[in-house]
């Protein structure tokens, strides 16, 4: 349920950028969400729908690009997507892994009119 705070913050960021561009309508917001960030897109959509009312972002489409978890094995260098609950290298079985993607949480771009 941290989506409420995250949506509020996202909307403020979008409105700031929109004001800078001196346009008054946002049509699209491109958001990048890592799988591990624990942010649920349909919750963001739900909060956005009422938080954006009477703002230049009202009616804008939210486009979520999901980034899957990715890890690199420190032992053999294998790059893989940890899928099961045991976060070990799918090649050599080592548990010494480094998370290389999956915690993204940012606005990539917006489209304005």
């Amino acid at each position: 349920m941290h989506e409420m705070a995250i949506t509020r913050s996202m909307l403020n960021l979008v409105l700031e950028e929109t004001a800078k561009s001196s346009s008054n309508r946002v049509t699209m917001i491109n958001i990048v969400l890592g799988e591990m960030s624990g942010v649920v897109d349909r919750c963001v959509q739900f909060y956005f729908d009422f938080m954006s009312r009477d703002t230049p972002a009202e009616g804008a489409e939210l486009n979520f690009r999901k980034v899957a978890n990715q890890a690199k094995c420190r032992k053999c260098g294998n790059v893989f997507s940890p899928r099961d609950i045991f976060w070990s290298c799918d090649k050599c079985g080592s548990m010494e892994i480094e998370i290389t993607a999956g915690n993204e949480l940012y606005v990539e771009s917006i489209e304005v009119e």
Partner: protein
Amino acid sequence: MEIKVLKNILNANNQIAEQNRRLLADKSILAVNVMSSPGAGKTTLMLRTAEELKGRARIAVIEGDVSSSIDTEKLIQAGVTAIQINTGGECHLDAGMVNSALLNLPLDELDIVFIENVGNLICPGEFELGEHLKVVVTSTPEGDDKPHKYPLLFTIADAFVVNKTDLMPYVNFDMDGFSQVVKGLNQKAVLFEVCSITGDGIGDWGAWIMKNLDKVRAI
């Protein structure tokens, strides 16, 4: 027209976190963000830590809860400086809430501020507070599978405290397995096995906190 933004959604929070960082640096205060699920024993760990550090460091605890001031009252009763934040529904503390709490603490008379986050293993991981250290407390009755279920928190922690080691004979907790998984996921973090009730293992934990306080003072 497309506008490139490429900004973290929590940019506004992170800026306030930076203000907190500067405020803490000005006062040479070490700040520790303590995160866990509800009931892992954060408040009891705080009470035991206050006792352990007595005479060595002046501490305060910022207590984050959705509602009530039960934890703060417990700490104040034990003679620990504490301040309550009620989030009123939010499942985590953010940098703004911590900023208001810091401004209401006697910072000139403190060496360490522990920030006891809202009991939750998901949301607090996203919000920078301006802290020096992130500590994840987990307790043996919760089971050893938490790092698999909540990987974000376990990858960003500086230390793990496994609490309630006195219950090990009664619960299904594989300490070796847990240790192997968290050290694999997170090479920089240190692991402490403690029991906040009996005081087992608290000495090492307290020494680590003091070592980190020395680092902050040396800057």
